[in-house]
């Protein structure tokens, strides 16, 4: 890298005008925001150092990281783009370029685009209501208020459903936008349960927006919280809804998707008539649209780091051309919008002292994102091993949760990586055989060659356990060398191990909330020193 450029240098090199600069194009603008996970305030967020693509996805975005990513998109090491989009030298660059996102900055970006492009359509890809202390305390209401003020015109969903059916319906009642989900059906009579699409009329154009919720909600999250609904990819249903919109003579079809990038890539090649897929769920930030046939796919990152602007030339019911920018939301450069800042202050005020309480300190960078354990995950696993007196810890491979530079760890920081409606930290016994089955099962949900069998998360995080993984092997054959770290013994299929974990999808799971487990551990430790995880070995071909 370039060492550590000073903050002044970094800020001199960046201006709001430059970040928002865009040569207007065509007659319609789409604005896409997704997977903010309720992070109202600016955050640090380190992009993954490992994101393995198998089968056709190998070597293709988003399965390109670090230096290779910088080369692919001609990004200069140490540049603002390198900081925003890749992991190398993250800690140094973070000190220079500062935090990213924050809904008051996002509001400035949206307002500026709308000023340049009246009639621009703002769409929310979901994972909006979940992921922070305030969203958990207000049960999603804070985010509904924020998105109403921001003026989102349609959304789809994933983690939203973990508030349970009744709360989802209450919040939908408070929204100024429809919740779209062509693939959400009622589980009893197998009939559409949500509006599949909405036609938005703007600038003399009729734009059909189809919503696609996360297909594997009842598998990846507790289905007992929303037993009324069934999801799935439902490719034929998507084709039917697109055909219906075309039949109504729309000028453009936009799919607001929470499929995850690889699923969208496959779907784009199999469903005809979609002009633009606004892709969410897998948290990938890709600086250029990916073109599949006549469809472009836009990936807009997560946690409010980016806002996508897509200008389109739409004529004679066809998309004739596009121009795109993945706008990085540098919070030190973009002026906060005072109206949104006021709402955020109001939302946070009742919780401010709880949010800002310092629980402990870290001597190193804490991050999560990547196919395998990040340092945040190691800390959470250590907390479970210690506080629940377990031999092995399991922590979900979710992709949400902000990074944290060395220094204080507040309660808000802990909630950024743990907040959920089913955070009970269980303690149980599991046979070695069962552990292997769990690891193989989760690995196949990530590394199956067919994207339609992928669920878009990362590998389950482990503590007290070492293993070797070959992502390119078949199910049942990826994981070898499972070792109990406390004594170096091989995991015995027949022996029972004491396992602690959290985020179980099973109803009736008992235990303290994971954020309390982490808090107690941090208070006991005072300061933690993240070390590289050498217990997980990756075989690559």
């Amino acid at each position, binding site marked *: 890298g370039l060492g550590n450029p000073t903050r002044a240098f970094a800020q001199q090199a960046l201006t709001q005008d430059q970040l928002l600069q865009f040569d207007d194009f065509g007659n319609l603008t789409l604005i896409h925001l997704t997977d903010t996970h309720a992070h109202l305030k600016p955050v640090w967020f380190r992009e993954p150092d490992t994101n393995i693509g198998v089968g056709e996805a190998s070597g293709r975005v988003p399965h390109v990281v670090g230096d290779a990513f910088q080369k692919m998109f001609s990004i200069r090491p140490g540049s603002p783009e390198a900081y925003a989009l890749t992991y190398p030298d993250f800690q140094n660059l973070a000190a220079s370029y500062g935090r990213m996102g924050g809904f008051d900055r996002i509001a400035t970006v949206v307002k500026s685009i709308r000023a340049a492009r009246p009639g621009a359509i703002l769409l929310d890809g979901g994972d909006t209501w979940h992921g922070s202390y305030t969203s958990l305390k207000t049960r999603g209401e804070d985010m509904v208020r924020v998105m109403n003020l921001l003026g989102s015109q349609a959304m789809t969903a994933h983690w939203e459903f973990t508030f349970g059916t009744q709360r989802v319906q209450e919040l939908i009642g408070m929204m100024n936008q429809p919740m779209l989900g062509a693939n959400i059906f009622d589980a009893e009579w197998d009939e559409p349960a949500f509006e599949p699409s909405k036609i938005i009329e703007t600038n003399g154009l009729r734009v059909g927006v189809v919503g696609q919720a996360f297909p594997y909600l*009842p*598998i*990846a999250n507790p289905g007992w919280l929303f037993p009324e609904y069934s999801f799935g990819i439902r490719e034929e249903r998507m084709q039917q809804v697109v055909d219906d919109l075309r039949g109504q003579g729309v000028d453009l079809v936009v799919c607001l998707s929470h499929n995850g990038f690889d699923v969208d890539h496959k779907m784009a090649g199999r469903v005809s008539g979609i002009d633009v897929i606004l892709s969410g769920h*897998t948290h990938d930030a890709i600086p250029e649209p990916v073109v599949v046939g006549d469809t472009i796919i836009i990936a807009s990152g997560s946690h409010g780091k980016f806002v996508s602007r897509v200008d389109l030339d739409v004529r004679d019911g066809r998309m004739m051309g596009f121009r795109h920018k993945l706008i990085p939301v540098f919070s030190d450069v973009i002026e906060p919008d005072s109206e949104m800042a006021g709402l955020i202050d109001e939302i946070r005020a009742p919780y401010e002292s709880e949010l800002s309480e310092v629980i402990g300190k870290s001597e190193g960078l804490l991050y999560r994102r990547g196919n395998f354990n990040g340092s945040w995950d190691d800390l959470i696993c250590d907390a479970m091993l210690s506080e629940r007196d377990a031999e092995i810890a399991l922590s979900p*491979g979710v992709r949400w949760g902000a990074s944290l530079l060395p220094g204080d760890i507040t309660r808000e920081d802990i909630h950024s990586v743990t907040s959920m409606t089913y955070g009970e930290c269980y303690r149980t016994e599991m046979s070695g055989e069962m552990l292997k089955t769990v690891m193989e099962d989760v690995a196949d949900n*990530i590394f199956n060659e*067919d994207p339609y069998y992928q669920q878009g998360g990362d590998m389950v995080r482990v503590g007290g356990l070492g293993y070797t993984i070959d992502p390119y092997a078949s199910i049942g054959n990826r994981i070898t060398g499972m070792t109990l770290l406390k004594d170096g013994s091989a995991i015995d299929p027949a022996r029972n191990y004491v396992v602690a974990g959290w985020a179980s*999808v099973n109803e009736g799971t008992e235990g303290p909330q994971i954020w309390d487990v982490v808090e107690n551990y941090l208070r006991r430790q005072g300061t933690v020193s993240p070390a590289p995880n050498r217990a997980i070995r990756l075989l690559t071909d």
Partner: protein
Amino acid sequence: ALPFSLAAQETAAPKTAEELIAEFTGGADVVEGDGVTLTAPEIAENGNTVPISVDAPGASEILVLAPGNPTPPVARFTFGELAGSQSASTRIRLAQTQDVVAIAKFPDGTFMRSSSNVKVTIGGCGG
């Protein structure tokens, strides 16, 4: 005398998918073909209730099997004179990941088969 009854022996060893198919076809050839479609989700939301649909235009009967279950038979659909199509949907139990099989019998005595892989998983996490 035998230490156990023949009936008990029968319940101990359920018929295999091959035996059930042979019984259904009377030993006739079964071809893989477009004449029958089995639709199922890629991943089951819940192995206890997996939606499946079968469709075989012109067929008189469709046999559905789950060869990966402890007992493979699932259902046998016989279409009557007032069937609006030779198709049906139901929900089934799958004990594990497997290829669910549908075999259609046509009035001319031919048989066609189709299968669909359904993954039954413990679950993952998410983005």
